């Protein structure tokens, strides 16, 4: 009958708040609040050497920190397991070809490239972590500004890297193909999108799907100790693709709106 405890339908998300450029000393950052779930992502661009098997590409490194502020279970090393699980999921999603244009991160093949260190901080756990994290990562990558560098060759052949003087002269990443995760939790015979903590406690199995803005499914993962019927997996995939597309459109709309406000935008940050 499509009615959940808080009045939402099975495919409705909670109201989300997205803000970028909240951390001033990063190359890009974003904060996403989805109901009670609060995620902060910071991206730092550093110079490094390309990987041996991909000499003309840069790469991304993910690190997820579950802050002890989120739940008492994350105290000390309690949040490490969840953190590594989320980081591995992010690695898997971004390992697919075409999600991020890694060739644009290359400065000198085999010698220099940009490495993007993406740090995810879980401030509050209110259910549906993966979706919020993927939305925040996409927003942070959209906000990332990598300074333009030029490589100068000396007479002896040694290379020098020159940073442009203008701080606003930078390259932006194209995040059109960056996928977002949609979590579908199975409760009883139906499946719901964006489960709250109570709904997650009731669901025995969930399906994590990463969907691009065009509705293409790039990666799938099943979590939970329950089992899923193959029929229901197909249904969940269809729902996930539909929901993923609308998630991408509204995220892109809000990012463009924020961008258009430019310097007139009032930064709310954490003390708002």
């Amino acid at each position, binding site marked *: 009958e499509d009615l959940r405890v808080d009045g939402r*339908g099975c495919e409705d998300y909670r109201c*989300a708040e997205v803000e970028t450029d909240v951390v001033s000393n990063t190359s890009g950052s974003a904060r996403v609040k989805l109901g009670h779930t609060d995620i902060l992502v910071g991206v730092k661009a550093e110079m490094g050497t390309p990987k041996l098997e991909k000499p003309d590409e840069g790469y991304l490194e993910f690190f997820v920190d579950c802050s002890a502020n989120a739940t008492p279970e994350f105290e000390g090393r309690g949040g490490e397991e969840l953190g590594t699980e989320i980081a591995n999921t992010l690695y898997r999603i971004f390992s697919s070809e075409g999600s991020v244009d890694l060739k644009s991160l290359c400065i000198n093949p085999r010698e220099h490239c940009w490495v993007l260190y993406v740090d995810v901080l879980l401030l509050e756990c209110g259910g549906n972590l993966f979706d919020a994290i993927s939305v925040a990562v996409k927003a942070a990558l959209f906000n990332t500004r990598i300074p333009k560098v030029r490589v100068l060759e000396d007479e002896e052949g040694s290379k020098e890297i020159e940073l442009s003087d203008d701080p606003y002269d930078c390259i932006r990443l194209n995040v059109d193909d960056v996928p977002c995760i949609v979590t579908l939790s199975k409760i009883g015979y139906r499946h719901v999108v964006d489960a709250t903590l109570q709904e997650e406690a009731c669901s025995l199995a969930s399906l994590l799907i990463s969907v691009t803005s065009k509705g293409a499914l790039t990666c799938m993962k099943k979590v939970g100790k329950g089992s899923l019927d193959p029929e229901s997996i197909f249904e969940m995939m269809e729902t996930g693709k539909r929901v993923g597309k609308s998630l991408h459109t509204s995220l892109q709309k809000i990012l463009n709106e924020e961008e258009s406000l430019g310097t007139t935008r009032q930064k709310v940050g954490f003390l708002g």
Partner: protein
Amino acid sequence: MAAVAMRLPVARKAGGPSGPRGSEKHLVAPGDTITTDTGYMRGHGTYVAEERLIASVAGAVERVNKLVCVKALKTRYNGEVGDIVVGRITEVQQKRWKVETNSRLDSVLLLSSMNLPGGELRRRSAEDELAMRDYLQEGDLISAEVQSVFSDGAVSLHTRSLKYGKLGQGVLVQVSPSLVKRQKTHFHDLPCGASVILGNNGFIWIYPTPEQKDEEAGGFTTNLEPVPLSDREVISRLRNCIVALVTQKLMLFDTSILYCYEASLPHQIKDILKPEVMEEIVLETRQRLLDLEG
């Protein structure tokens, strides 16, 4: 069609219009001096140090003749005899159940404080002990009354009445205990079609009104029939209204919940949780409550 609403964050407005108040509340933080006058008796939330009365919690100072106490906004539940609580069974022990009621220590429900089915009055035997798990298991929700408070602050509950017992299908909302107003009765049948139990410990239980009053003693059998959609809509709406009232820090009692429900009728159930709709509804509720008083 799936609906995903995203928005840019808006800075919160500092302290909205609160209407005419008698006097400004004296707000204190832990460590603040309340008074240096030694003639006052100290109540909850205060302690005496160096001949000064100092607050130990953050909240508003309440003065009743010579008694000074500090009422905190967000606390754990402190049991008082006669309070109605809604709790969840966490453990089944030898002759008692441990109940979680959002207080500092788990509350206790003794087997001897529980009504036997059929209303018999007899000494509990070893068979009753073994059958404890048939009555209440871990994870069950119960409504009970506080019988007594132990010296360490733990609360002892009893369900010696037909209106207490195991709760069936419904929705639980957890709020701070200080937001539940103390009233004569905490069991309300709202005219909109649902019933609500306002536990003093901050657990609020919303459930569909049973058609006929069950004569079974103790209320141990749970009705697991599917709840019709209309009832579920009313319950979801009530749940969202209560969440809205709590976010705006309004006291919860049957009239405020009812006014909030009526103010929310023009909106869709899922829209009530949007910040601007929440503010609008609670403002209207506040207005009506002030009109009722004045």
